[in-house]
């Protein structure tokens, strides 16, 4: 967009202002002395939306230059997309019972069953793919929900302070004090039994996992609201809503996005924990956590039942963490890595 302006400015030496624009200027800025030179036609129908993209391009450029983050992003995307496609095209569904079962010395990885089969004959590759898909979906939804709630609450508390801050932060403290796992266990169990799907598990984790984002955004807003440009925005007559959404939020976007990424990793762990405990996604649906739980008893005999789901969890979390690091680096190159 910025480039387009420049092009328009250079290519349009022959003065082509819209008639409306000219009239407007006479009407509104009648007191301003007319420019001696011709007015160049600069604007386009998309207004100024492209400006932010330029800032984005800078961040994106810094992100793209980090090989580890890029590889992680590629791998994570591959896992997400690949698992979805595998569900459609793999010759077994995760629900299918094959004519093979894991017995002593049989049922390990083979050409027909790359990840082997379990003790009742499920194809483990289909199951791991399904579990991965559900985990990725759950984690992304959790990150979206918790970022939305946390950002809203943190922004309001940090911007308005006083009683708004008090009420919202005490509420946040309350949610923090609630033993997350216990509540997730109870609610997740209920929700999972009601509908048995990843969707409700994700919503419940998301609704309880926003506290960290809220505190982060609040702290950011507390410092941002004191910046002079906020006062300047008020001085031109901007409303509180406009200042929060258009002026403060873009300035706080970096930490919010980085944190959303890390929430993805946390959500994968939480969901796996719940499912491992038998409280998350319920059979016949599978998740990586429930697969590990199912394979746990046979780890010594049928190693593949444990190793493949566990490896997928570890790889996904590593990827997400590296992506998060890369984003942090891209948004704020001065900040050194916080994670050990």
């Amino acid at each position, binding site marked *: *967009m*910025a480039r387009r*302006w*420049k092009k328009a*400015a250079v290519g349009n030496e022959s003065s082509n*202002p*819209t008639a*409306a*624009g000219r009239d*407007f*200027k006479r009407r*509104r*800025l009648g*007191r*301003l*002395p007319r*420019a001696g030179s011709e*007015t*160049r*036609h*600069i*604007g*386009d*129908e998309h*207004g*100024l939306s492209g*400006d*932010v993209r*330029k*800032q984005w391009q800078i961040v994106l450029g810094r992100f793209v230059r980090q090989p580890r983050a890029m590889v992680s992003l590629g791998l994570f995307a591959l896992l997400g997309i690949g698992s979805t496609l595998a569900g459609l095209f793999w010759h077994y569904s995760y629900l299918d019972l094959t004519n093979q079962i894991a017995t002593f010395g049989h049922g390990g990885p083979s050409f027909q069953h790359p990840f082997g089969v379990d003790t009742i004959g499920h194809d483990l590759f289909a199951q791991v793919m399904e579990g991965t898909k559900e985990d990725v979906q759950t984690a992304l939804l959790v990150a979206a929900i918790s970022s939305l709630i946390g950002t809203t609450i943190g922004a309001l508390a940090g911007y308005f302070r*006083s009683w708004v801050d008090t009420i919202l932060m005490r509420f946040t403290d309350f949610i923090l004090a609630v033993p997350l796992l216990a509540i997730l266990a109870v609610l997740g169990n209920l929700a999972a039994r009601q509908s048995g799907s990843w969707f409700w598990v994700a919503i419940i984790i998301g609704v309880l996992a926003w506290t960290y984002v809220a505190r982060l955004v609040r702290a950011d807003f507390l410092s941002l609201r004191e*910046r*002079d*440009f906020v*006062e*300047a*925005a*008020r*001085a*031109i*007559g*901007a*409303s*509180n809503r406009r200042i929060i959404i*258009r*002026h403060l939020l*873009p*300035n706080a976007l970096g930490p919010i996005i980085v944190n959303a990424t890390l929430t993805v990793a946390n959500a994968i762990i939480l969901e796996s924990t719940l499912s491992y405990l038998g409280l998350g996604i319920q059979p016949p649906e599978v998740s990586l956590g429930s697969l590990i739980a199912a394979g746990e008893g046979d780890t010594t005999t049928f190693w593949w039942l444990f190793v493949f789901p566990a490896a997928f969890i570890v790889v996904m979390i590593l990827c997400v963490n590296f992506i998060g690091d890369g984003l942090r680096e891209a948004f704020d190159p001065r900040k050194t890595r916080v994670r050990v």
Partner: protein
Amino acid sequence: MNPIHAQNARDPYAPLLAIDGLEVEFRTAEGTVNAVRGVDLELRPGEVLGIVGESGSGKSVTAMAAMGLLPRSASVRGSVRFRGEELLHLRERQLMPFRGKAISMIFQDPMTSLNPVYSVGWQIVEAIRAHQDVSKEEALQISIELLRKVGIPNPEDRVANYPHEFSGGMRQRVVIAIAIANNPEVILADEPTTALDVTVQAQVLDTLRTALEMTHAALLLITHDLGVIAGIADRVLVMYAGRPVEIGTVDEIFYNPSMPYTLGLLGSLPRVDTDGSEKLRPIPGSPPSMIGKPTGCPFAPRCPLAADVCQEREPELAPVNAQTPSHLAACHFTKQAHDRGISLFIATSVDLDSASENLATTAPGSASSKAPGSEELRAPGPGNYVLAEGLSPAGPGGYETAPDGHEGSGATGPADGEETTP
């Protein structure tokens, strides 16, 4: 409302902005800070009113109160009226139509008063569209015109740049462009040149003048730089400890100062119209704490004219003499202050000639062999430290080394020059 003001509403010379009895308090852990203790001022159409005073004298707080920008912890009393309409107790939402349209503001530090994540074009468009019903495209063209008017070269290209791609002076021009985007009737400028490089200050003041010509707005200029005031203001209000202590036209303040604090300010300003041998006359002491209410004149502890009455009663603003009703000063000894002029305060230093004599007699060895001169004094060797100690309390430092010297002379120079060219 006061009937006089209602009557004035039909008068073209009626004040645009009228502040009456403005008092601002901040409650802090240490006690109540009385930041502003009764400011009355009127700003008429097309007028430039300068407010001078040192840090903490309440200048900025007065402007912030007028815009309703003070934090909620501040308690504000009195009255601020724009064209007779009371602004002080309006809610945020009711103030929005005034802000930027009727009254706009220029901030001190252009490095921080622009949003770093948006291009300057976006920010000017935002200001325009906050008050005018125009498309983004039209607003963008107006932005480019505005940038051209405030002296940004290649505005078509620069409009897409981000604040960090501009220098300080250029950013302040952008801030001025935003301030005049809606043809405001009043501009409040809070130390608009203070954060800038000396060489850029004069340019930005010129831009400010251009902005005033374009909008015919009245300007309330807050500064601690008397040079800036002399160049641009019509009237001057001197503030001390939260109150106006002297108010008058520029000529009245600069040629007939009648309040010791004003005299002190003028005496500590280096002059470019003398041969440079004039000594600076600083005001001793420091401004009073603003916590609690003072008894007596708050300037008394620093004032050479202070007498018993000054400790007992704070003087009110009163006309300095009957011939000039526009010139008011708050002092029990206006006449004495006026008659004694800046000689009221003790000059800061030995001048250069006697310094070199003393150098020869008091400084041992190598120092005495050096040629006397300001160059030597600006880079003191060990001998000069001895000199400084020997001549306590006054250290070496005349015209050239005065800390404010460059700033003041830089800002007044072009201003004086401009007045001679029509």
